């Protein structure tokens, strides 16, 4: 109506002039549409390996809307293993998203190959600020003196225990030593009339595929003072699990399965089992708190520190993008670390934000289970997965062997057989390190 009215009030003009004006109007309209479309097309695509992170990224996008009103955040979150596969295909071909969430151990090879871009000055300055991040986080964000990743969250293990089952078994506090873990697990195991375990006393990762089995084995071995592999002064690595600590850890597993029968490979395991009260305790990262809040809000449970220390797996935001996309990607990464978003992440998703100058106490007060993840003594030790190219192969090949060991009753009470197993597995790890030119001498 308005346009028609406007045309009606125009002074009389010739036919050619009308056509010229019409063309001009169409052109201007098209230009406006184009510009408007460009504004609308301001999109940040996030590739994540943790589907539970999707709401967080949407929230970060919302917080950026003050500056970019037309910003759209497209989150493509798929399970971690599939995420790693798509990156392996997309990064070399230049078709990956501009915001990539990834553990530093996995990102290392892409950084070395020049497929991840170094962070711009403002982001690098932010990451390098000692007031914001611990040395460990700042160090893992940096490769060759350049900052590549903006810290996001970390996976950190702790014990989850069912307080009702503990009380029923006459246990008033969580285990503090590995001997207590074994002792408590026996008391906590629920059995049917035939003596078969119906609720595991301690759920351990005994089966399945992938590196997770070896990672969990490492956590338990760490409590006995050992590591799977250790870095030498020259930057090379040596295998260290064919050792006393390795023997103790593997003995713990086979004793739990075959001697004490507190857990079996076919029993329900992990967070699902804990939430369904099919296990009394297990070791996992902080995301389980958020998971329990969603799936089993009435579950009575507590968390506790592990006897010696735990794994820390930091996850960063990286980008392989350039130009405007890269600018927006780094802004997004910085916004993800805003105090408001960091608190929201802990409160709503459960992953531990890496930014340390933020007050998380209201969340911890509301959910005391977070205490075991954020409050620990000074001598509490941490380890992380090595940022070396063959780390996945080392873990997945060891995992394949461990699964067989956990199902092998001949290892129970047989230290010689355990040692032989560890020696053979360590030889394979050495071969992988040697192939990658990373094998050092002890």
């Amino acid at each position, binding site marked *: 109506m308005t346009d028609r009215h406007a045309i009606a009030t125009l002074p009389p003009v010739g036919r050619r002039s009308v056509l010229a004006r019409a063309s001009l109007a169409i052109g201007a309209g098209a230009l406006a549409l184009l510009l408007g479309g460009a504004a609308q097309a301001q999109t940040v695509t996030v590739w994540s390996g943790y589907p539970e992170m999707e709401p967080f990224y949407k929230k970060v996008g919302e917080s950026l809307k003050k500056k970019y009103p037309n910003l759209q955040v497209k989150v493509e979150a798929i399970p971690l293993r599939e995420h790693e596969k798509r990156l392996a*295909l997309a990064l070399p071909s230049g078709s990956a998203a501009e915001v990539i969430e990834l553990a530093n151990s996995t990102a290392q090879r892409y950084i070395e190959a020049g497929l991840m871009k170094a962070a711009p000055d403002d982001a690098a300055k932010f990451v390098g600020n000692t007031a914001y991040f611990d040395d460990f986080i700042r160090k893992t964000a940096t490769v060759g003196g350049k900052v590549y990743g903006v810290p996001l969250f970390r996976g950190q293990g702790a014990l989850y225990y069912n307080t009702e089952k503990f009380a029923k078994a006459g246990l008033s506090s969580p285990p503090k030593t590995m001997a207590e873990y074994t002792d408590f697990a026996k008391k906590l195991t629920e059995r049917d009339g035939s003596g078969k375990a119906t609720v595991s006393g301690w759920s351990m990762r005994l089966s*399945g595929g992938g590196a997770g089995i070896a990672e969990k084995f490492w956590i338990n071995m760490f409590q006995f003072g050992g590591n799977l592999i250790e870095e030498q002064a020259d930057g090379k690595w040596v295998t260290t699990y064919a050792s006393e600590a390795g023997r103790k850890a593997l003995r713990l597993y086979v004793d739990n399965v075959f001697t004490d029968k507190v857990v079996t*490979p076919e029993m329900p395991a992990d967070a699902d089992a804990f939430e369904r009260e099919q296990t009394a305790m297990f070791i996992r990262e902080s995301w389980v708190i958020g998971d329990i809040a969603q799936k089993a809000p009435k579950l009575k449970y507590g968390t506790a520190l592990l006897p010696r220390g735990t794994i820390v797996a930091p996850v960063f935001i990286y980008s392989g993008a350039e130009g405007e996309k890269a600018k927006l990607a780094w802004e997004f990464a910085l916004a993800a670390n805003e105090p408001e978003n960091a608190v929201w992440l802990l409160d709503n998703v459960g992953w531990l934000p890496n930014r340390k100058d933020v007050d998380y106490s209201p969340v911890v007060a509301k959910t005391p289970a977070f205490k075991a993840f954020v409050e620990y003594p000074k001598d509490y030790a941490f380890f992380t997965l090595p940022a070396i*190219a063959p780390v996945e192969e080392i873990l997945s090949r060891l995992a394949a062997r461990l699964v067989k060991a956990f199902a092998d009753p001949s290892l129970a009470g047989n230290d010689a057989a355990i040692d032989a197993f560890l020696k053979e597995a360590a030889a394979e790890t050495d071969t992988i390190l040697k192939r990658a030119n990373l094998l050092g001498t002890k």
Partner: protein
Amino acid sequence: MTALQRWGFVAAALLPTLAIYAFVRLYPIGDVLFLSMHEWNIISRVRPFIGFENFVELYGDPLFREALRNTAVIAFGVLLITVPLAMVLAALIHARTASRLAPFFETAVFLPHVVSLVPAAMAWKWIFDARLGPLNAVLSLFGVSPKAWLFDPVLSVVCVMVLCSWQALGYAVLIFLVGIKNLPASLYEAAKLDGAGPIQSFLFITVPLLKPITLYVSVVTLVAGFNVYGQAFVLASDAQGAPGQLVRVLVLDMLENGFRNYRVGYAAAEAVVLLLVVLALTGIQFGLLRDRSRA
């Protein structure tokens, strides 16, 4: 039109199709052969030539040997279950062609073939569940103690085999049914006059005359069996909280080596071994079935 022109016309007509075929079918095979003799981590621009080193390493790789063994057991297991069973079912359905239920029988048998793999595998995962699965519940009625189907190293392979056979059966029955319908009725009439019963007719007329069809079904089933992946992945993947024995098959091992361990050349060497095994077995099947049928 001269002979040369005719040949030229034929070549020009076929060339686009052949070019596309060569690009999408032959080039990848050639590239896999090329990669199998190189070391490549999918990221690097450098691919050093290492000759047969990947194959030598494969020979001593326990995971590869396990994958090859599992794949071969599954493929031959599926072949042995599917082909005879499909032939019998096709004969039974054919014998009931006049029945009003004939379309139902055909649909019921063919349905698993068109059902999407993932939901079907999830359903089977539940059937095989050690604690809640109906299979153990049914077996317990006969006094059989519950089995950890998806954990036991042997039973988990059997589970994958059962799932693959269940899926492959429908297609095999359909092909056999087409074959049976085309067999000359006069032979059966003559056999009947000579006093042959249905079982004798099946064994001495249907089975021998179906040899070309059996060859086709066998080759297709065996090749599909060697390419098993999705069934093993869904039934026994590394889903957290869902314990299960990882049934390592060749394709799964290739994916792990290629995209998790970043050893594309090594994975390509596995693919070459798979190609050679399937080619050799197909050749043997052709030799066994085709020659005898000609004799």
